[in-house]
């Protein structure tokens, strides 16, 4: 009895925690509310009225669709690249010892610690030196630099928890490297890859800085939104899009969270 009372937080601390959480999350709610306002020039509070017409307007705006398509395409391709490269480098770093292993591990993780503006400027000048025209692919390359990190981190953690004797056992029972990867390694790292892939997708989907610096004429969804805010035209459309972006990125992150959490029960060892 006593210990349960002792472990209870005082009211003041609880209030502070609730206020803090509200402060972080109320503005998101505001965005949702403005998506349904009848007023389209300024953000007036309280909204003079509510309407669903902006959903329809957004649906019929081709520029929204174009930006959405580009964002999905970039996110999908960079996630795929990240999955392949991230898994391979994680396998190399966690499974074998070689000269400069720690350095390589650090270099792989670096892009996510580096401010996006630096990654962006570096890539931009590299592209112009190499005479590579800006295109979807330059955006994809830019995004891949930090998407790889997310997949790599997830995969490395799982590889470390998976006993190396599993691979040897599989070889011992007649499986070659390909079969061992297919039947033993992949199922054991699958949830980690899925989680890493989803995080990578979400990161790529709402990235602005690197995208701005590596894009040519193309606008991904976040870039399109920034432009809309600068030159307002049917303002609530931006809010509708913001709502969609929120859902598209929030759901994978939530799923990834649950996958990693459940993954903790999947131990790689027979002990």
């Amino acid at each position, binding site marked *: 009895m006593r210990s349960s009372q002792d472990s209870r937080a005082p009211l003041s601390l609880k209030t502070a925690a609730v206020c803090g959480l509200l402060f972080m999350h109320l503005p998101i709610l505001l965005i949702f509310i403005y998506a349904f306002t009848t007023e389209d020039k300024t953000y007036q509070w309280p909204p003079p009225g509510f309407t669903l017409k902006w959903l329809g307007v957004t649906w019929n705006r081709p520029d929204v669709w174009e930006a959405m398509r580009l964002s999905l395409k970039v996110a999908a391709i960079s996630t795929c690249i990240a999955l392949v490269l991230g898994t391979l480098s994680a396998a190399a770093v966690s499974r074998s010892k070689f000269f400069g292993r720690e350095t390589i591990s650090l270099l792989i993780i670096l892009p996510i610690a580096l401010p996006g503006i630096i990654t962006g400027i570096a890539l931009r000048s590299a592209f112009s030196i190499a005479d590579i025209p800006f295109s979807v692919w330059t955006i994809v390359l830019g995004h891949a630099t930090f998407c790889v990190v997310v997949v790599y981190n997830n995969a490395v953690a799982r590889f470390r928890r998976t006993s190396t*004797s599993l691979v*040897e056992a599989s*070889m011992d*029972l007649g499986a070659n490297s390909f079969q061992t990867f297919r039947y*033993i390694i992949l199922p054991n790292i699958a949830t980690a890859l899925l989680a890493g892939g989803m995080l990578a997708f979400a990161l790529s989907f709402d990235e602005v800085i690197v995208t701005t610096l590596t894009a040519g004429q193309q606008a991904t969804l976040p870039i399109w939104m920034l432009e809309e805010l600068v030159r307002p035209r049917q303002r609530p459309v931006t809010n509708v899009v913001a709502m969609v972006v929120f859902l598209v990125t929030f759901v994978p992150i939530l799923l990834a969270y649950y996958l990693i959490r459940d993954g903790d029960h*999947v131990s*790689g060892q*027979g002990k």
Partner: protein
Amino acid sequence: MTSAVQFEKVSKHFNNVRAVDDVDLTINDGEFFAMLGPSGSGKTTCLRLIAGFERPTSGEISVLGEPVKNVPPYRRNVNTVFQDYALFPHLSVAENVSYALKIKKIDKTIRRTETENLLDMVRLQGYGDRKPSELSGGQRQRVALARALISKPKVLLLDEPLGALDLKLREEMQEELKSLQRTLGITFVFVTHDQGEAFSMADRLAVFNEGRVAQLGTPEDIYYRPKNAFVASFVGTSNVLSKNLLNSLGIEGFAASLRPEDINIDSENGIAARLISKSFLGSATRLSLEINKERLTALVDYAQGQHLKENDEVRVSWKSSALHMMQPAP
């Protein structure tokens, strides 16, 4: 008779460490062979060389008469029971056991009957649908055994498979492994650091020390006729009599081993010794003696040790045949 496994001048170096150093060894077809030694003595590396997980730095290994230098682990007719069992955590017990058959693309119905047979053999009927995490240590051990035996290997390698089990279970499994090996008639190569385990199961054993085979022989050979001081002290509690002590007793030789149970308390003649301590072991009494400043351990009957007190002067003797002369360590 062909040999199951043959080592010819095999060495394995890791950087500057000679894990296996110039080993010559022949393991006969159908025998229960133990590799005994302290940790770091090279016994596990030898096993991994046979399985193909490591490649020798120099020398030649043959399995069933065929050199295996360029044969990868998945093409060797050898299977392994791993120390940590290495059961696949995402597969059920039945899927674990039938893994080798699935890789060989064997028909599903045959796979199922074979798996059933193997699970019967290790007394795990009805456990097929469980996950390894739902089994006890002893059951996991049996699954690992069934999984390694399903493709009918000619040689089964066991890497300290009983290490993680408690004493009672370990003794049961020792007997079970022994009878299994008799029934199947295949070669078992068993790595252990526990001399009791090696003695109770093996037909022959090799005692490893610092990457070399210190002695190769039957359990009786090794127990009663240790070739050198390392074997004598590692295997059980044999006394090692140094050159000085031997000379002071008027015996020529480098060193000799003497089993504690071969020392008798003799009130009339014999060698003068001082009793340092005694401990009651139930059926016997263990005496710690000092002769010429060297310690010896003796095991005597309860009746013989009953009246002795610490610091007593006693006289001890042994039959000359009990003293076994040894060579310098290899």
